[in-house]
């Protein structure tokens, strides 16, 4: 992995993960542009497919956060779409999944961390949002704070560990067992990629929904 392509623009080093991410972004943007350039009231097959994807994501988000679903839907949907493609990119020869890079998963986890506070404060306000760290008892404040950091760290490490171990296992089996043996491992790779993308996005959704609705839950209690 040390032989991966990279270049530097001043102090900024652009590695393979960033280049792959740009490629994924370009593909997603191209598909989005192609599928939405001629939207009709009576949809065609491509429009029907992308509408189905967006509606499914929207319904999943709304099911968890009924009152604020539309506000956080773009963030969660982008997470799911990006992670699904990023996790599956590793199946293409000579390409590596960006999510096997701890810097990438950390960046996504940090984005989730800040998004939780951003949407929480925007929804509830500073005072109400920070107040939920003192409930049900101020004694629990340190645990709340530790929880915020550990769950972010867990998000990053979980995705990074699963995707990196998956690629390494596939590589080792390919080296040991020959050409045909890795096919079941590739099937497992697809399933694992989808499951990890779903888990990361769903956890992010739950954290966001928890932050935005924590005050309401406390009021109901």
């Amino acid at each position, binding site marked *: 992995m040390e032989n991966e392509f990279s270049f530097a623009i001043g*102090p*900024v*080093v*652009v*590695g393979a*993960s*960033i280049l792959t*991410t*740009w490629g994924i*972004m370009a593909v*997603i*943007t191209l598909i*989005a*542009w192609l*599928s*939405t350039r001629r*939207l*009709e*009231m009576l949809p065609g097959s491509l429009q029907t497919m*992308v*509408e189905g994807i*967006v*509606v499914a994501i*929207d319904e999943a988000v709304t099911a968890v956060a009924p009152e604020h679903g539309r506000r956080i*839907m*773009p*963030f969660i*949907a*982008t997470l799911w*779409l*990006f992670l699904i493609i990023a996790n599956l990119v590793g199946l293409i020869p000579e390409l590596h999944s*960006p999510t096997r*890079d*701890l*810097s*990438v998963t*950390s*960046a*996504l986890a*940090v*984005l989730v961390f800040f998004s939780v506070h951003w949407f929480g404060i925007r929804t509830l306000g500073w005072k109400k949002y920070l107040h939920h760290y003192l409930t049900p008892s101020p004694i629990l404040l340190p645990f709340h704070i530790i929880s915020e950091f550990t769950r972010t760290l867990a998000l990053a490490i979980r995705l990074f560990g699963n995707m*990196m171990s998956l690629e390494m296992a596939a590589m080792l089996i390919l080296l040991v067992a020959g050409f045909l043996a890795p096919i079941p491992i590739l099937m497992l790779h697809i399933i694992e990629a989808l499951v990890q993308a779903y888990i990361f996005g769903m956890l992010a959704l739950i954290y966001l929904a928890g932050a935005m609705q924590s005050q309401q839950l406390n009021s109901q209690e």
Partner: protein
Amino acid sequence: MEFNISTFALEIINFLILIWILQRLFYKPLLDVIAKRKQFIDQSLADADTVRKQADEQRDLYENRLMLWEQEKQTALTALHQQLDAERRTQLDRLTADLEQEKQKAKVTLTRQQQEHQQQAEKQALQNGARFAAMLLQQSAGPELEARLITLLINHLVTLPEACKLCLQTLGGKKSVPVKVSSAYPLAPEQQQLLEQKLDSLIDSQVHFQYARDAGLIAGLSIDIGAWVLNANLKHELAGFAEITHDFE
């Protein structure tokens, strides 16, 4: 496994840019068109609901109108049946009256026909009786019957009404009166003498008697005295009997 701060920072920037791109290029247009379609479908459903309500109202109105028409039809049918019953009763009464009148006419006609038949039968019976009597008298006639008829005539001459007697006495004031006596059988001299005496006593003028035979008289006499004819014969009697049948005609 090593952490690269440049990759970390660039990934954050990339992801934020991707969110912005997808929000502008993908989510918003798709959600807008889905919302428009939903609005269109809701509007169509609302329009369909409105049309359905209007259709229900029209159906209720139509059913009410049908019910009213049915009631009107029943009322008209009832009135028509009443009129038909009244007309039927009137026609029946009229027919009964006509039949009664015709029955009376037929009865009168039958009675008249029966009377005519009875008259016809009586006439026929009289004619048969006259014919039978004529045949019987023609076969049984003879000088004896004639003698009895002469006797009967002489007796009747005695009992003539006074008006007749007066006419015979004053037969025109003539000096001699011819008297023609016709008989079916020759008269005996005694009979002639008795007849002349009786007539002479009735007539004031001189009387000349002439005697003749007329077999058509069957039996008896026919006496011509000027304008007077005294008949005492069967021919005359039978003719009188036959005249009765003419009275029926």
